C-alpha cells in the first residue's frame, strides 16, 4: 500500500513538474520580459559559478590524464593520451561533471531562495503588488541557467584540457602545439555538437527543478531545507537521464 502511494506521489510530482514546465513556456514567451533581472541572474548563475567549474574542470583534466596514463602505457599508445583525454572530456566528462557541480551550486540556491521567499510569503506579496512572480523569479532563473551552463561547460572543458596538458607534462614532455593539434585533429562535429547541445537541456533541467522545488516548498524552515536538498538530488538524476537519452539519440542519428 505504501509503495502504491509512493508511486502515486511520484506520478503526481512528475505531472506537477510537467505543468510547471508548460507554465514556464507560456509565461516565458509572453511580454513583458524581465531583461534586467535575467542579466542579473545570468551573472549570479553563470559568472559566479565559473571559479568552481574552472577548479573542478582543471582537477578533472589533470587527474584523468594521470589516471589514464598507466593503461595507455601498457597498451603502448601513450602518444594517444591527449586524444583519449580530449575526447573523454569534451564528449562526456566535461558536460556531465560541470552540470553536476552546477546543479549542486545553483539548484540548491534556487530551492533555498525561492523556498524561503515562499515561506516568508514574499511571493504572495509580489503577486499582490502587481508583479508576476513566476515571470520575475522562475522564468529569468530557468532561462539564465539554460543559457549559462553551455558557456560554463565550454570554459570548463578548456580549463580541463589545460589541466590535461599539465598532466601530460608531469610524466612526459609534449609541446602545447602538438597537444592542441592532436586533440583538435581527433575531433569532428559528432564529438562536439551533441555534447554542446545536451548542456542546454542539463541547464534547463537544473533551472526547472530548482525553481519548482523552491516555488512549491512546504511551509516552515524544514520545508526550505528539503526543497534545497531534493532540488539537487532530482536535478542530478535528471542530468544523467538526459545524458542517457542524448546518447541514444545521437547514436540513432549516426553522428556518435
Amino acid at each position, binding site marked *: 500500500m505504501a509503495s502504491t502511494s509512493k508511486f502515486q506521489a511520484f506520478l503526481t510530482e512528475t505531472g506537477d513538474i510537467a505543468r510547471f514546465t508548460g507554465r514556464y513556456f507560456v509565461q516565458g514567451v509572453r511580454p513583458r520580459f524581465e531583461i*534586467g533581472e535575467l*542579466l*542579473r541572474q*545570468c*551573472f549570479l548563475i*553563470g*559568472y559566479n559559478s*565559473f571559479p568552481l567549474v574552472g577548479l573542478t574542470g582543471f582537477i578533472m583534466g589533470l587527474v584523468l590524464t594521470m589516471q589514464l596514463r598507466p593503461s595507455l602505457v601498457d597498451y603502448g599508445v601513450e602518444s594517444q593520451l591527449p586524444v583519449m583525454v580530449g575526447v573523454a572530456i569534451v564528449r562526456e566528462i566535461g558536460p556531465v561533471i560541470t552540470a553536476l557541480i552546477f546543479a549542486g551550486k545553483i539548484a540548491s540556491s534556487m530551492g533555498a531562495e525561492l523556498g524561503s521567499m515562499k515561506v516568508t510569503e514574499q511571493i504572495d506579496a509580489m503577486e499582490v503588488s502587481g508583479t508576476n512572480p513566476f515571470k520575475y523569479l522562475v522564468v529569468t532563473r530557468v532561462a539564465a541557467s539554460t543559457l549559462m551552463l*553551455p*558557456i*560554463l561547460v*565550454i*570554459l570548463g572543458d*578548456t580549463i580541463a584540457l589545460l589541466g590535461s596538458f599539465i598532466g601530460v607534462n608531469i610524466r612526459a614532455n609534449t609541446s602545447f602545439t602538438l597537444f592542441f593539434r592532436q586533440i*583538435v*585533429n581527433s*575531433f*569532428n*562535429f559528432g564529438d*562536439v*555538437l551533441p555534447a*554542446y547541445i545536451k548542456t542546454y537541456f542539463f541547464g534547463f533541467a537544473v533551472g526547472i527543478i530548482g525553481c519548482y522545488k523552491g516555488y512549491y516548498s512546504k511551509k516552515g524552515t524544514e520545508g526550505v531545507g528539503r526543497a534545497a536538498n531534493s532540488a539537487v538530488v532530482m536535478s542530478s538524476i535528471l542530468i544523467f537521464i538526459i545524458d542517457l537519452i542524448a546518447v541514444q539519440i545521437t547514436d540513432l542519428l549516426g553522428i556518435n
Partner: protein
Amino acid sequence: MANLKISSLKLGLFVLAGLFLFILTLYIIGKNQNFFGSSFEVRARFSNVNGLIPGNNIRFAGIQAGTVKHIRVINDSSVEVVLSIDNEMKPYIHKNAVASLGTEGLMGNKVVNIVPGKSAAPLIGSGDLLATPKTVSTDEMLLTLATTNNNIAEISEGLKGTIRRINQSKALWGILDDGSLAGNIRNSLRNLSQASLHTNEMTRDLGDIVSDIKEGKGSIGSLVRDTVLSSSLARAVEKVRDAGASIDRLAGQLDETVQDIHRQVAEGKGTVHALLQDSALARKLDASMENIRAGTDAFNQDMLALQHNFLFRGYFRKLEKEKKKAAAKNETAGTH
C-alpha cells in the same frame, strides 16, 4: 544599479569567452574537414574501398591535402571516390599521380594516399580521374598467406627428408669427416694457382707471337705482311683459273665425243654399236665364253689328277689334317 553595470561587463566577458571558444572549436574542426577554403575535386575508382567513409583524410606525399567528399558505387566491380583537395595542393599534383588506400597507423582511420607519378605529366585539373593500384585487402593477404604456408609446409617436409638422407649418407659424412680433404683441396688450389701462372706466361708468349706477326716477323708474319707473297699467290690463283678453263674445254670435247658415240649407236655404225647391238657378235662372244669354261674344266681335272699323283699327295693330306684340327678347336670353343 552601479553594481549591476559591473556585473554586466563581467557577464559580457564571460559569455563572449565561451562563445569565442565554441566558435573557434567549430571553425578548427570545419577547417580540418575542409568546410572552408577553396578546393577542387578529383575522382578515383577502386574495386574495394575497405571501409573508407566521407570525411576521411587525403594525404599527398604524407601531407594533409583534403578529405573524401563522397563515395558512390559505379558498378559491381568499382566504387568511385570523390576527393576534395585543397587548391594550394593543385600545383604539385600531376595527372599521373596514383591514389591508394591506407590507414593512419596500424589500426587507425582509413586515408587516401596520393603518390606522385615517376615521369613528367601535365598538372591535374578538376574532375580528373586518378589512377589506382589494385588494393590488397587483409583478407586477400591472409588467403595468399595460407597458400604460402602450405607451400612452406611442403618445402619443409621435403627439406626434412633431404636432411635425413644427408644425415644417413655415410659417403657424405666420410667426405666431411675426412681431415685430409682440406689438405687435398689446398693442394689443388695451389696447383690451380700454378696453372694459372703458367697460363699467364703462355698468354704473354702468345701476345709476343701476335705482336711478332703484326710486325711481319716469321713465316706467318710474312704470310700476313709480305706483299710479294700475296702477288705470287694471286698469280697462282690466276693459273688455277686458267687450268679450270682448260678443263672446261676438255669437258666440252668429251661431251661432243659422247654425243658422237651415241649418234653412231643410234645409226648402227662403229665398234660400240657392234658391241651393244650386234647379236652376231654377242653369239660369237657367248661361244668364246663357252670355250673358256670348257678350258677351265679341263684344267680342274688336270689339277685333281695332280692331287692324286704320289709326288704331291703328301702335301694335300697334310693340308686336310690341319683343316680338321681347326674345326675341332672351333667346336670345343663353341661348347664352352
